[in-house]
């Protein structure tokens, strides 16, 4: 007798994936809906939301700001993350765990607190005006721990003998870094760059508190959420942001796995 048995765990997994994805997928779904309200039944297919989005000059400006901040933040955070990861994986240091704990602190402290603490020191103590630079500073703070985690997992199990060999063969520390350490860490570095870029590109709270007149894309999006009549271009913008994040995360994850598999330095 053939019985159709559905494993409860599998059934739950299907439910779970639906719970995870359905709410988020509503944004792209309704972005193509020919109506200014997001309700069922849907009215018909349109690209008007996307047209409205592309025609909005302040949106394009916010996109430019977000790209600049994102690229700058990913480079600076990855450089800082790499230095810290190299130090932490290679040397035994007294007091390493409190130092590491402090660097990892932005992972657990609510970003609201980080943002207002930075705001207080910037405005009240140093009287620095709020610009995209202050937003970028806040984003670096959030990105460094992630970058460090990614790069530490890449550098752990790194064969110290390779660097020693390079030194023995007469390379100085700088050239050893570029010819040995850097190529081995490269998949991790690219993964970290991409991850920091997405974090910065999507980050809202820091940008909301630390930006002046120049907005980043999430801050712009937030300002649009208040106007119901602007829902179609806002949904189109939201869908585009989701698409960018998904592509970048998939590439970064693929690179990281690829990097783990080709752990032999000869592979590069």
């Amino acid at each position, binding site marked *: 007798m053939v019985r159709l048995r559905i*494993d409860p765990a599998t059934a*739950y*997994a299907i439910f779970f994936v639906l719970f995870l*994805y359905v709410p988020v997928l509503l944004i792209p779904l309704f972005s193509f809906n020919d109506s200014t309200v997001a309700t*069922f039944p849907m009215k018909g297919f349109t690209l008007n939301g996307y047209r409205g989005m592309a025609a909005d000059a302040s949106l394009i400006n916010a996109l430019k700001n977000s790209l600049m901040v994102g690229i700058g933040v990913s480079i600076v955070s990855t450089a800082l993350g790499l230095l810290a990861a*190299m130090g932490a994986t290679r040397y035994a240091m007294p007091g390493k765990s409190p130092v590491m704990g402090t660097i990892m602190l932005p992972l657990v402290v609510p970003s609201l607190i980080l943002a207002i603490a930075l705001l207080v020191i910037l405005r009240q103590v140093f009287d620095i005006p709020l610009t995209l630079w202050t937003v970028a500073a806040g984003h670096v703070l959030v990105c460094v721990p992630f970058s460090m985690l990614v790069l530490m997992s890449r550098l752990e199990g790194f064969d110290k003998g390779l660097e020693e060999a390079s030194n023995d063969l007469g390379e100085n520390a700088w050239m050893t870094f570029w010819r040995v350490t850097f190529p081995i860490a490269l998949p991790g570095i690219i993964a970290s760059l991409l991850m920091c870029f997405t974090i910065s590109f999507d980050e809202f709270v820091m940008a909301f508190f630390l930006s002046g007149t120049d907005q980043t894309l999430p801050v712009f999006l937030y300002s649009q959420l208040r106007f119901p009549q602007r829902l179609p271009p806002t949904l189109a913008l939201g869908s585009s942001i989701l698409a960018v994040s998904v592509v970048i995360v998939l590439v970064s994850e693929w690179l990281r796995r690829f990097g783990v598999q080709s752990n032999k330095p000869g592979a590069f």
Partner: protein
Amino acid sequence: MAVAEPGQRLGWTASGDQWNRWLRRHEWARGYLLMSPTILVMLAMLVAPIVALVVMSFWTQHVLEIDRTPTLANYWHLIEPAGPDDETAYWLGIPFPFKRAVYIVLLLKSILMSFTATVAVILLAYPMAYFLAFRVKQHKMIWLMAITLPFWTSYLLRVFAWKLMLGFGGVINSGLMKLGLIDQPLEFLLYNPIAVVITLAHAWVAFAILPIYVSLEKIDRSLLEAASDLGDRAITRFFRVTLPLSAPGVIASSLLVFIPTVGDYVTPTLVGGPTGIMIGNSIQSLFGKMNEIPLGSALSLVMMLSVTLIVCLFLWAVGYRKMQRSIA
């Protein structure tokens, strides 16, 4: 490439040479030298701002001017007992005899909402992590990526998605009406604490799966076989072997969700409405339009200290250290 010759050293100053030799002998110094740029940035942008917040919390604001004499006035402001003329505030039927009970009530409410969201996250995440660890045999990486992918997309958009779901004319209401199950839109879906809890749980669940999954994956499968061989049924085996061994992952996940959500700002602002606001909204308005920065600093610190205290009590209560030792 130039081979290092002893002659090159002659160009260096004696002190530079000594410094180099000292560095070579002390491994920790090389480590710290390498980490120093990161440490300096973190000192300037994380430690200094928090110290500034602490200092500020002892100052007082007089309309537009800040008085820098250190006092405990802000902390007293938060816990000052109600005078005989003040009305007693009630929350969940419990009286709060404070002059400005709003802050304490809001803090407790945020902790309760965050706690509920954490419990919901664990209940949702555990079976999924179990499925990933024990049932998925092939393409584990693809499953893991599919589960964690939403966590990397915009938090703001994930919260906004729930506004679309739960709103008065939203997806659930219009869908149910289309199906003829209800005539009137349900008003209790959006703008209340439950909407905040659902949204928080959805936003963090993808992240919470990982620690539980890792701890389940680490369980020695022969222990499970032994339990079965000795006569445990699947359900007893789960409660006697699997669950206790995965407890560290559950604890890590709970903390990963609980600690950052108490001070969340985006979710209560977008889906909370007037009844669903949390302590983050109060802190934001103190720093923003109310311009009470010292009081806001004090409130932020009280929130962080309360969360730290709860976490420490929780870890002590579950005997986390003992658990780690016995598993290792």
